[in-house]
């Protein structure tokens, strides 16, 4: 077996390039620093749009845009209703990396898979641990245990022997985020414990299984950032030390798996770390549905819940994080915008959003994308019509019940699209600006 044809990916959910670069320079992450001085580069990378884990990880695993893979967020509305549904792995329309190299694509196809057809083997084994949006676990050629959201470890793990093993080590699927505000110490403790369990599981499967592609994901970073990102750089923050301590443990893990993998492949395997989006401190949360209500674009029926509240005559609504849907006739039961009026509504919303300022006069929205700029493929008909990206500090929310346009909460970090990261060997040929959809192709090249 040619050991150069082995790939190890360490996913670090929500780890920003800027923060890793600072932590490496400051000595908080000495292992990362050592790797970077030994022929690897830390790149800033664009996440998918919207920059939410379900969409971005799906873009990573399939190497195609949401218009092909079909995942636009953690929630969707069921066709021709305002009822919410939660897309999961079964909703993904494009084959994942492990399908393409493992011969399990079935009827799924994608531009990426077509491009590598016949060029990569179809009998390679993959180990995939804790990758978001992989529940329920598919029967792949290898081992998979699903990441967020995984409501059931048994159904989220393939094969059953892997489930039995994970149960035996009291594996932690996800930490209890609700502890973050009232029991912060317990929250940090559990995050460290979960990190240890991930490392234990990674080591077990690395050693006990035969594999060609290994993808292990740590999601605790994202949780820490949501509640404590303000502690990342503020040295006087009560939880700065605990935050940094977690990153030093993360760094241990990076160093440990780098060495282990290099030893196993004689230094010839492809090692990579990456994240699905970046993070920035929150200045304000921005509830666009409220803005739409105030501007007469949306009416709500308070007797109902969630998106079923959308009332008569509504022209548009927003779902997390900045997905804007025009309430089109024929697309929704209460559709109130005729196809001929769509452009006018779209233009009205774009100028409304670009003009939006907070109380201190700061521009809230960085850019509003139209669907055609972002999405192409068979699933693009289901896409949001517009996606609003906030300036750093303005977290765009789809909550439908807020009484004001701007607010704050116990959340301290927001996702950013432009500050995801990727660590790769310096020799790998890359586009000028790296995008998360590029990584699958870089991985597949290795198997040719």
């Amino acid at each position, binding site marked *: 077996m040619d050991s150069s044809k082995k790939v190890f990916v360490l996913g670090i959910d929500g780890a920003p390039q800027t923060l890793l670069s600072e932590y490496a320079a400051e000595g908080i992450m000495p292992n990362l620093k050592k790797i970077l001085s030994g022929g690897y580069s830390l790149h800033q990378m664009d996440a998918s749009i919207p920059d939410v884990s379900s969409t971005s990880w799906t873009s990573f695993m399939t190497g195609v845009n949401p218009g092909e893979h079909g995942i636009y967020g953690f929630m969707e509305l069921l066709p021709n209703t305002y009822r919410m549904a*939660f897309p999961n792995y079964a909703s993904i329309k494009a084959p994942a990396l492990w399908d393409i190299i493992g011969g399990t694509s079935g009827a799924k196809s994608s531009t990426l898979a077509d491009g590598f057809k016949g060029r990569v083997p179809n009998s390679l084994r993959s180990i995939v641990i804790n990758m978001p949006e992989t529940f329920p676990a598919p029967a792949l050629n290898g081992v998979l245990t699903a990441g967020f959201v995984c409501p059931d470890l048994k159904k989220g793990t393939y094969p059953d022997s892997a489930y039995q093993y994970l149960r035996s080590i009291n594996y932690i699927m996800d930490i209890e*985020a609700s502890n973050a505000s009232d029991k912060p110490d317990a929250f940090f403790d559990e995050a460290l414990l979960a990190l240890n369990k991930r490392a234990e599981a990674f080591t077990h499967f690395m050693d006990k299984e035969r594999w060609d592609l290994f993808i292990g994901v740590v999601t605790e970073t994202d*949780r820490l950032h949501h509640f404590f990102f303000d502690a990342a750089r503020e040295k006087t923050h009560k939880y700065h030390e605990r935050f940094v301590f977690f990153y030093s443990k993360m760094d241990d893990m990076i160093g440990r798996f780098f060495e282990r993998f290099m030893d196993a492949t004689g230094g010839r395997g492809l090692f990579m770390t990456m994240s699905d989006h970046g993070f920035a401190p929150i200045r304000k949360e921005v509830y666009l549905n409220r803005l739409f209500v105030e501007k007469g674009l949306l009416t709500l029926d308070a007797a109902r*819940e969630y998106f079923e509240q959308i009332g008569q005559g509504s022209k548009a609504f927003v779902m997390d994080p900045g997905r804007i849907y025009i309430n089109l006739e024929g697309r929704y039961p209460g559709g109130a915008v005729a196809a001929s009026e769509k452009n006018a509504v779209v233009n009205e919303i774009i100028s409304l959003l670009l003009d939006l300022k907070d109380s201190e006069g700061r521009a809230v929205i960085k850019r509003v994308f139209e669907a055609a700029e972002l999405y192409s493929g068979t699933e693009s008909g289901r896409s949001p019509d517009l996606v609003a990206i906030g300036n750093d500090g303005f977290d765009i929310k789809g909550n439908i019940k807020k009484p004001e346009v701007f607010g704050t909460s116990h959340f301290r970090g927001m996702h950013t699209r432009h500050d995801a990261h990727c660590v790769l060997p310096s020799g790998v040929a890359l586009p000028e600006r790296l995008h998360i959809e590029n990584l699958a192709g870089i991985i597949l090249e290795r198997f040719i």
Partner: protein
Amino acid sequence: MDHLTALENKSIFIIREAYYRFRNIAMLWSVGKDSTTLLWLVRKAFFGEVPFPVIHIDTTYKFPEMYRFRDEYAKKWGLNLIVGRNEGQVEAGMGPGKGTKLDCCNELKTNALKQIIEKNGFKALLLGIRRDEHGIRAKERVFSPRDENFKWDYEDQPAELWDQYKSTAAEDNHFRVHPILHMTELDIWKYIRRENIPLTELYLSKNGKRYRSIGCAPCCSPIDSNASNVDEIIAELESSHTSERAGRAQDKEDAYTMQKLRSLGYM
């Protein structure tokens, strides 16, 4: 002693024990097959009488067949029937179309029951749950203490080895008593056949479909089945491997997903 008689004896012992220990008790009757079997056992335990109130939690979303059956047999068996409704929430329009299913169950079932317990000061409630219904119920005890907030601390409960039941509790607690915990779905049907216990027709096949488990109409879906009498249901169960509550799994996953997403600020 045959299997069904042994099960019956055990249930009757538990029912009498609970009544003897607590006196101020009641039973929950959902009008489904399990609690109707429990009601039958209570009548046997006290020679045709039911010496305590029978509570039906009415979410207002039950099947019409269930209301008909409840009223008919409450009269026929001379029950002291308490119908519990969370009126405030019913009037406010709580229902499966509003909020999550978890919110709906919580308001219309759990809180309705809380109100009744508070009002009547019941010390124990008899419930027709069975150990084989769901994973979490395998941890249940026959005498299961609850705190004032209805919380069940499954990591801290009496062991019940050799059928030794613990039936004393702190002042604020009440007990859930589970006289048919040891029966399986198949045991219930065989006992229903032996005793000829009346049930609503929802369990019997109509146009190729029947309900295997009944509750609120909007949240129950029938299964494909041609079993149109109890014998055929028993034959079907003996050859089936799907779980009784299979149709409810999706709801559970969705409720978990929502809670998780909410905790990270989505929705």
